[in-house]
Every structure is written in structure tokens, then in C-alpha cells.
């Protein structure tokens, strides 16, 4: 018999996701990752490890790169969240999505959403990063397919084009 007396009630939590205000009913300790994927059906953010090691659950929260598998949804109350679904502007790809395509930054694609968000965050903080700074900025995002080179090249190219634009 499930011990219903121990069960907690759900709470209403509001935040902004990809520019749209959202309110969800969730247990306070649900992981932001699960709320995004299940309740909001934004399945672009992935679970690779559940322990904040692989970065495939990365999102931007109030402009900061975070691992959404480690965020209890209550702590996201009032936050401004960007997931991979919010990176492109409608049908127009973000510069980084463009350069990832041109430089082979995505192979199997599972690390790609997190990787693109990490790269977005990096270029916001450091518009002209050195190759070393790119590698450091992506060090929390593991990729098993690419060996990172073409990802780094994609990010470097995006930063170059941004500088010239």
C-alpha cells in the first residue's frame, strides 16, 4: 500500500521558458530537467548521467549556464530559462547552430543541445575566446563522438563571424 499520508502536495511554480511565461504544477523537488521534458514537452534537453557530469541537460537560467538535472524546480521560481528550443529565432538558426552544421559539430546529436547552450553562454561572457578558453568553456559538456575538435572549430568560427558582423 503506498503510504499516501507521506506524500506531498504539488505546488504551482511560474517561470519564463524561451520567452513565454509558464506555470506548472509540480512537486517542489522535481528536477527542472524532468519538468521541462515531461510537463512542458521540451524534449530537446537531455539526461545523460543525472549527476551533473555530462552537461547534456544544460540550459540557461537567468543567463547562467546550469545543469538542469541538479536544479529542484522550486528554485527556478521566477527564473528566465532558455532551452535549445529557444535558441533559434523561429526558422532562422542561431549563428552557433549554423557553424555547428558547417563544421561537423554534431554527430549523434545527443550532447548537441547542451553543447550549443554552453557555447552560447561562453560567447556571451567572452565574445572573442581563445581556443583554450573555448575548451575550458565546454569542459563540463562531454562528447563521445567528435573528440571535440570540430565543436571547438564551430565555436571559434561563430565568434569570428560575430566580431566581423
Amino acid at each position, binding site marked *: 500500500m503506498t503510504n499516501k499520508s507521506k506524500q506531498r502536495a504539488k505546488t504551482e511554480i511560474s517561470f519564463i521558458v524561451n520567452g513565454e511565461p509558464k506555470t506548472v504544477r509540480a512537486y517542489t523537488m522535481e528536477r527542472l530537467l*524532468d519538468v521541462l521534458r515531461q510537463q512542458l514537452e521540451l524534449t530537446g534537453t537531455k539526461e545523460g548521467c543525472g549527476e551533473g557530469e555530462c552537461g547534456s541537460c544544460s540550459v540557461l537560467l537567468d543567463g547562467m549556464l546550469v545543469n538542469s538535472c*541538479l536544479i529542484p524546480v*522550486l528554485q527556478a521560481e521566477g527564473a528566465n530559462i532558455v532551452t535549445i528550443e529557444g535558441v533559434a529565432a523561429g526558422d532562422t538558426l542561431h549563428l552557433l547552430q549554423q557553424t555547428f552544421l558547417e563544421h561537423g559539430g554534431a554527430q549523434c546529436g545527443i550532447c548537441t543541445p547542451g553543447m550549443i547552450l554552453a557555447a552560447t553562454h561562453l560567447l556571451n561572457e567572452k565574445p572573442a575566446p581563445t581556443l583554450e578558453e573555448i575548451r575550458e568553456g565546454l569542459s*563540463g559538456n562531454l562528447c563521445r563522438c567528435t573528440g571535440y575538435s570540430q565543436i571547438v572549430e564551430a565555436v571559434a568560427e561563430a565568434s*569570428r563571424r560575430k566580431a566581423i558582423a
Partner: protein
Amino acid sequence: MRSHPSDFEMIAPGSLHAVVSLLTREPGMWLPIAGGTDVMVQYAAGMLPSRKLVSIWNLPELRRIEVTASEIQIGAGYTYTDLRNHDIVRREFPLLHTAARWTGGIANQNRGTIGGNIVNASPAADSLPALLVYDAELILVSVRGERRVPYASFHTGYKKTLLAADELVQAICLPRRFAEHFGYARKVGARNSQAISKVCIAALGKVSNGVVEEIRIALGSIAPVPLRLAETEQAVKGKAIDSDLLLLAKRAAAAEIRPIDDIRSSARYRAAVAGNLVAEFLNRLGAAFAETGEARDFLVRWNRLPVDKAISLILSCCGSKAWAHGVVSRRPLADEAALLAASHDAWSSLAHADWNEAFETHPRIGESRASQASPQSVEWSAEEQRNVQQSESGVQKALADANREYERRFNRIFIICATGKSATEILEILRRRLKNDAATELHEAAEQQRQITHIRLKKWLQ
């Protein structure tokens, strides 16, 4: 995910007062959670015994820093990113700054807090050795008020602390008296980033009249708690730094630490590396106090030179007069770090014409002289291109041909930071850059020039 969210409850009262009141009203019932980078991992693994959590994330009373003349007070809710971004932390507490850079990846640095690191009390925690050597004090807070305890006494055993059931760590106080010390920090993990440390060290020292005047060494991951090596410090204090002392220190450290075998590493490895790190620290301490005198003198003298003399001396590092002006105008510069920062700033505000001026002082890669180079610049160019001079003649010819093609296309010499690169690597890069459009290529060349300048400035100081 091995926990059921419905079995757990989290509240966020929103003020420090409300949180400590709660901890007093219901002692032992509520687990404070800040950024969650430790707690949430346990939760996901189904290994979190606490069912009730109270959020202390982003509490303004905790996520702040106060600076007075004698100390800084870092709020326990300060994240690693906050630490990395704070100027005084960077300048006066570089060991803590470095530890913040080591901790996880960027995403975890954005959420992990210094307070969480302390209270979680893992002996492998990256920032704890730095706190030990900086003589940190903690301000603990409860409804009963605040109390200040030396951090050195905070950890009482493996994952056990002085914290009472109704208390929180409010702030970490660091006295501002370590600016003159030589600092050394190193972390040894299974990979370069995002690794739990196998051994880590934070150390400070001062040499005076040729002997060790002050010494502080703390290590992580070699005992149930982060450990200050008091006995090793005693053994080293007052002595001159030579190879005998390094050996003595290694042995003392090995005797003082209590490393274990665990899933990540072995006791023997930890012991060997800990000894090596202590020796490396002492070695560098000795070298710093031998050199620093000279390096500092040179910079002090250069700071006092008239503008045109100062400019002409620094031009060998980078041929742009506008850049040289920019650096000189930022005098006085206290040390190497300040010099490099000034160079970076000056470089960022240059126009394309200034870049070109800098480019023209380099010889073509593979040749020896440029028309506008100073003798020092020529010597440095030769050093930087050593690998090329020694490479196979086939490669040298290919480089010469590619260089000429570059010049035809872009109307200037091919600029690359050649230090450490093999001739074939350079050739490959050259060929890639030949395909760039003009604007992109100018930016790439400028970045290379910046790197060259950086390396030369370091040599210039020596």
C-alpha cells in the same frame, strides 16, 4: 532518477532569519540546500536520507561579499563564478580564485557555493585547502546569534563539522595580509577539468634573508579532513631552500598525511604525489624570491623612465607604436600580471593600421630578418621559429612557397605564434588560413600577434 519527488518537500522562506528560525523550531528535520550540486546528486542516486529541504539559494544575506581594510567576508552563498569574477579575490586570494576555477565545469561553478563546499565537508573539496592557508574564520549563525570560529577547527572528522543542528555558515572571513606571499595551488585529478581531486594543495610562503620565513601548506584528499601540514611546516621553517630541504619536506609530508585507497586512486600514489607537490612548491618558492627581486627592480626602473625611452624599450615585444603608447600610459605597472593586463587592454583598442605596423616587424616564417625589427626582436623571432629552422628541407620549401602565396593574397606577411608548433603544423595552419576571406584573416593574424606579444613580454621581464 532513483528518488520519488513526492517523498520530498522543499521550501524557500526567502530570508536568512526565516531559515535559522526554522532550523531552531524543527531541529534536525530540514536540510539546507544552496546550489544543490552535491545534494541533488545524492537525491538522484536514491541516497538522500533527508526528506525535507530548505532552500538557501540566492539569499541576499548569504550571496554577498564585504570588503574592509583588514579582511574580506565572503557570504556562504557566493558561487564559484562569483569568486572568479571578484577582483580582490583574484588579486589577493589567488589560491581561492584558482580553486574556484577548478571546481567542476562552468555550469557547476555557476551553482556551487563556497558554503556548500565547506559544509559538505568532503576531504576532496577543492577550495578547503586554500581556506586553511589563508587563516579563514567562519561566521556561524543561528537564532542565538553569530559566532566566529577558526576554520582550522571546523572539521572534526570525516564529513563531521562543528556546525550545530540549528546553525548555518553565514560567511567566510579572510584576513587581507597575504598579498606579499608567494602562492601555489595545484590540483591533481583524473583529467584536466571536472574531476574529483586525487590530491590537491594550496600553499603560501615567504623567504627572507635566504631562509623560509613563513610557510603554510594544506592538502586535500590525503586525510579524512583537509589537512594543514603543521609538522612539515615546522621542519622547513627557518631553513634555506636547497635540494636537501626538498627531500626533507617530502619525507615529512609523507609521514604527516593519511591517504587511503579508494575508487579513484591509491594511498601510495597520493603519498608520492603529495610529496612531489610539496617539493614543487618549495622549489618555486625559492625561485620566486630569487627572481622576483630582479624582475621587480626592472619593472620599477622602467616605470620611472621618460615616455619615449619606455616606449622604445617595449617595442621589441610588439612593433605597434600605438600599442606601446597604450601600455606606457598605464604605468606604473606593479608586476607581470599588471603588465600583461595593460598589454591586453592596449591591444584591444588598436586600429587595423596599428596591427599592420606590428606585423611588419616580424620576419617571414622560415627567414631570419624583417626590415623593421629591433635586434632583440630578431633574437626572439629566431627562438620562436626554432622548430621551423630545424625541420626537413621539403617542409621548409613548402613553407616558403605558401608564405609567398599568402603575401600575394593578403599583401602582408603571414603572422603566427610559432612557439611550440612544429613546422608541419605551421604549414597546415597557413594553408587553412589561405582560404580565409580578408576580414577573417586580419582578425586571425591579430590574435596571433597578441599571443606573440604576450610571450615576449614575459621574456622581456627576465
